């Protein structure tokens, strides 16, 4: 019986493949794309100002509302600025770590680093955010440590800066930035390390052999070949920052972020269409970001 079935399946490759793919396709199609389309549809509805009911008619009124209020535009720009800053910082910090993991560490050291990079992700996200609030507090361990180093004036100087500063790290954009970078760094390190691991040593040797100094080898060979990993990692850090609403509500200055607006609009305000329109913003921004990355040749080496 089984043998007959196996033989039948083996003969019909297409059917066999379809059978295997059906469950994940259903999952992807209905749960992922379906809900995404539902979301998009919601953003094309509008809320009736008087009855607070959703009017199921296609309209761009919600988007008009989203983009015509300066406060909403502020929120989008604030979130975008934070996402860009976090992504850049994560890339700069992740590169040396990923490079060490991929090229220089022995097997034991490499395992240690992989576990070390991923371990923070094993604990609860909320615990980490609240822990950071304590770390960054005015009398917190970080300011104590900075004081021990005699760098308190530098910290105070940074906190006195406009926009990013604040009364303490825990209630400033600077502190929020630190927490974001901490949270998403593993998502940058891992794809970057994977990309760097695929660059054979002989390419770097060939570059040096042809007369390139280490800096030239980095610019001409390592960086272009690491770009796909960098692009993948930055999509993570970028989109995770754009969509997060817990970190901005626990740590940092009181300004709103996109995620917080989504949370508030669909909850207390009960404006589902506006919430949906807000959550379309990160999708559009990431789409633009990917198009730009492709333009710049980030995926040419794939």
């Amino acid at each position, binding site marked *: 019986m089984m043998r007959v079935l196996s033989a039948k399946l083996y003969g019909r490759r297409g059917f066999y493949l379809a059978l295997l793919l059906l469950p994940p396709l259903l999952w992807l199609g209905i749960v992922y794309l379906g809900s995404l389309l539902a979301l998009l549809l919601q953003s094309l509805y509008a809320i009736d100002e008087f009855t607070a009911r959703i009017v199921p008619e296609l309209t761009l009124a919600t988007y008009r509302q989203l983009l015509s209020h300066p406060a909403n535009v502020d929120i989008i720009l604030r979130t975008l600025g934070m996402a860009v800053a976090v992504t850049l910082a994560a890339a700069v910090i992740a590169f040396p770590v990923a490079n060490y993991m991929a090229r220089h560490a022995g097997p034991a050291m490499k395992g240690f680093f992989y576990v070390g990079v991923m371990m923070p992700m094993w604990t609860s996200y909320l615990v980490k955010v609240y822990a950071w609030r304590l770390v960054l507090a005015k009398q917190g361990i970080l300011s104590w440590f900075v004081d021990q180093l005699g760098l308190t004036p530098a910290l105070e100087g940074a906190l006195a800066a406009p926009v990013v500063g604040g009364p303490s790290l825990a209630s400033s954009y600077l502190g929020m930035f630190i927490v974001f970078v901490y949270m998403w760094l593993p998502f940058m390190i891992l794809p970057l390390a994977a990309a760097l691991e695929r660059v*054979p040593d*002989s*390419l770097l*040797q*060939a*570059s*040096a*052999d*042809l*007369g*390139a*100094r280490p800096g*030239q080898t980095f610019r*001409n*060979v390592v960086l*272009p*070949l690491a770009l796909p990993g960098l692009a993948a990692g930055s999509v993570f850090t970028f989109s995770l920052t754009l969509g997060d609403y817990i970190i901005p509500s626990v740590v940092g200055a009181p300004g709103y972020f996109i995620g917080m607006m989504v949370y508030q609009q669909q909850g207390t305000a009960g404006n589902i269409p506006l919430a949906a329109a807000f959550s379309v913003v990160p999708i559009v921004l990431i789409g633009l970001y990917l198009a730009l990355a492709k333009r710049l040749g980030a995926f*040419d*080496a794939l």
Partner: protein
Amino acid sequence: MTAAIELRGVGRRFGSVTALEQVSLAVAPGEFFALLGPSGSGKTTCLRLIAGFDRPTQGSVLLDGEDVTATPPFERNVNTVFQDYALFPHMSVADNVAYGLKVRGVPATARRRSALEVLGLVQLEELADRRPGQLSGGQKQRVALARALINRPKVLLLDEPLGALDLRLREEMQTELKTLQHRLGITFVYVTHDQGEALSMADRIAVFREGRIEQLDAPRVLYVRPRTAFVARFVGSANVVEAHVAARLTGEARPFAIRPELIEVLVPAQPVRAGAITCEGRLEDVQYHGAASRWHVRIDAGPVLTAARPESEPAGQMPAAGDRVLLAWSPESAVPLVEGPPIP
């Protein structure tokens, strides 16, 4: 004349493993020099020390009389053709070839012109705008060669450059490389584990074994006068006769090597040339190899000796497996060997 490359008592240890020990050699300008040996014998380590990818733990490396032991690869006037070609996958063929000029700050139009010129040398101009991923193995190999030549190095290092190619292409490239070397007058250092390749291309060959040079000579000398049993067996095939067997055959207890093609196969009744060394044995089998057949004979003194004879020999009735035969060779064909370290 100053040597193009000189190694003085060079050694390289990796922790407790010795990859190279007390290697000294000098390569003359314009010479085609081969480093030959089985894998793990230290020949590639040796090449990496000359290129500067690695530094010796002992001794010194000189290029053109200048000590470069501590000089990084990007400041050495040598270029390398890598075993895996190491072409940059994100650059076109022309950009790959022009890379050496790019990092020296040559403007784009000038380096494109030079790149096309060097690509012409290996007959690949029409592929200048392809990506390495779109090339065949043989084409990649030529691009790697062109890229290594663009800086006009005094020394070209080749690390098993033909290892990944199929037999016909390999033979074609051998001729091409040799011609190119003549034309450009560049010193070639060529790493290979293929003794045929080394014999047919090199001016001199250093045979490596376990991190040391076992013998350094011209191909002809290496083949005709191998110094040790290892060289005799590794370069061409040879019968190595151990001391105690040699004592029974010649009366002298000294090991010797004899090439199969220098052994005659006779039927016992046939007359033997005067002065020849002879031994009787039983024919085990005959392997047909086209131009010549290989006769495996277990001689009465113990070991199996191989004789290679043209198809037409021996004249008359062909002996069959199991028959008694007579092997004969002239005394000067046997090469006395130095008792080297035992062969594992």
